[in-house]
């Protein structure tokens, strides 16, 4: 498929779901009912880390133009963890690739900490992890993890510190002693750990995850999800994280907020803050209610599960 440049007009939008940053609740504190469009007087707005304004995208396929994304508006608070759910082919990966600067949107713009994605890439501000780990098979684990530093031109004596940083990161992802191994000598789970270490080594302010655990077994998926949370918690400033996933359980377990997209062309259906305390167990009633709630939105079977931005869902809170 060729990428369409903005000469093709976007489809007219049915609704432009816009979620103000103040609607995002964080931590386990009791959430306030979010104001749909305006900030209360006297409350300073949090500058969004990620700002998506009117972003749409059209692909040119064999049979003609295909609109992958309806115009979307989205804001993500600094340091928060947003999971994006949606049916297969709805445009989740397209949105993430636009956020990372790998794809240019047909219309609209994106800002990452106030800068367009290509500028964020130039600053190496993006940690990227996809289904395929993207490891270089001809380089050992240490070289793969240290890729960002190598590309930044790290030279001695900083190179020695870089080696220590790589070894430390490998220890933190549970792979001490694997520095000299090659990717083909590792299991799928181990390879994703290496890829995660690579994504986080340079402490990027943004971490974009495109179904990184999709190929893995359930236990490994859970462990790697916990690892992402642990590494975020260890960071002085947690990276603003966007996770595209097919798993509702995974989204609820990991994220501070879950965004549900409709079928193609993707538009924002649900924006659900999650204020449950961590760790979130599968048998927790609050987790169960949220999962059913979001599945209902995904399956489109419950009219009350389909929300517009003007009437966002009440956040579900369990008492501590």
């Amino acid at each position, binding site marked *: 498929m060729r990428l369409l440049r903005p000469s093709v007009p976007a489809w007219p939008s049915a609704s432009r779901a816009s979620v103000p940053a103040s609607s995002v609740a964080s931590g386990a504190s009791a959430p306030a009912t979010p104001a749909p469009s305006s900030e209360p007087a006297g409350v300073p707005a949090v500058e969004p880390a990620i700002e998506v304004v009117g972003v749409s995208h059209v692909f040119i396929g064999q049979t003609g133009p295909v609109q992958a994304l309806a115009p979307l508006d989205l804001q993500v608070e600094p340091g928060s963890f947003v999971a994006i759910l949606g049916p297969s082919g709805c445009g989740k990966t397209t949105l993430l690739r636009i956020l*990372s*600067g*790998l794809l240019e949107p047909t219309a609209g713009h994106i800002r990452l900490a106030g800068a367009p994605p290509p500028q964020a*890439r*130039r600053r*190496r501000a*993006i*940690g*990227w992890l*996809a*289904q*395929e*780990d*993207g*490891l*270089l*098979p*001809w*380089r050992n684990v240490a070289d793969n993890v240290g*890729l*960002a530093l190598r*590309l930044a031109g790290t030279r001695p004596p900083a190179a020695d510190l870089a080696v220590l940083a790589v070894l430390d990161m490998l220890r933190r992802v549970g792979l001490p002693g694997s520095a000299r191994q*090659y*990717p*083909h000598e590792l299991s799928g789970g181990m390879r994703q750990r290496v890829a995660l270490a*690579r994504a986080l080594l340079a402490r990027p302010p943004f971490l*974009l995850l495109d179904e990184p655990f999709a190929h893995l077994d359930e236990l490994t998926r859970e462990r790697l999800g916990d690892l992402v949370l642990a590494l975020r918690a260890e960071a002085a400033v947690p990276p603003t994280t966007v996770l595209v996933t097919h798993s509702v359980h995974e989204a609820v377990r990991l994220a501070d907020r879950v965004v549900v997209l409709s079928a193609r062309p993707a538009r924002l259906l649900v924006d659900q803050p999650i204020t449950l305390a961590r760790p979130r167990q599968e048998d927790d009633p609050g987790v169960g209610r949220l999962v059913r709630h979001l599945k209902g939105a995904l399956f489109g079977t419950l009219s009350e599960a389909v929300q517009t931005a003007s009437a966002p869902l009440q956040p579900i809170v369990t008492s501590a």
Partner: protein
Amino acid sequence: MNALPTLLLLGGLLLGWEVVVRLEHVPAYLVPSPSVIAARWLASPGLFVAEGLVSLAEALGGLLVGGGLAFAAGLLMARLPWLERGLLPLAIVLKMTPVIVLAPLFVLWFGFGPAPRVLIAALLTFFPVLIGVVTGLRSPPPAARDVLATLDAGVLDELVLLRLPAALPHLFAAVKVSATLALLGAVIADWMGSDRGLGRVIFLANSNLDTPTTLAGVVTLATIGIGLVGALTLLERRAIFWH
């Protein structure tokens, strides 16, 4: 163990050939038996080895020249599609021109020394290596390409870290094909006009109806070809250890 089936099959064929020739009393100038060919080879091993090494050296020279030029052209063509559109038809024209036509012309232009033979070998090497390089450089693993893009890797970094290593399997496949073509080209060029090389030995023997010497030359050529491809395969296994 891996070579056992091949050796058994080959041994069976040679035995059958020997038996048929002896039983039918086929004259040696028509179809010499394997034992006669072997005896001819063993009567002058130095000749076949020395002339074989000359042809091998010409083939390797052609492989280096043609392969090197194809690599450089392929690097540019992979990066600049307009250059590919311009040069590829010319490369195909060169490829399609029969060597049997070009070899005497090269001798006329460049003399009887090794230069025309190296150039013929280079000509036969060029096209397969060019296609291998262009295809290989344009086939990096997409996931790794995305990672490097998000890390803002420059063109040179992407080439060195990703595209060149990813192109190695294509490159080695092309070089193995080209190696045999280069050897064949060198021998044909020897045939056309040279005072050295296996091609000259085979040509003279053929002219004198010395079929045992002709076939001994062919066996030497085949052995050199197998050795060359074998050496490249060993090199490939070292270079592409992850494949």
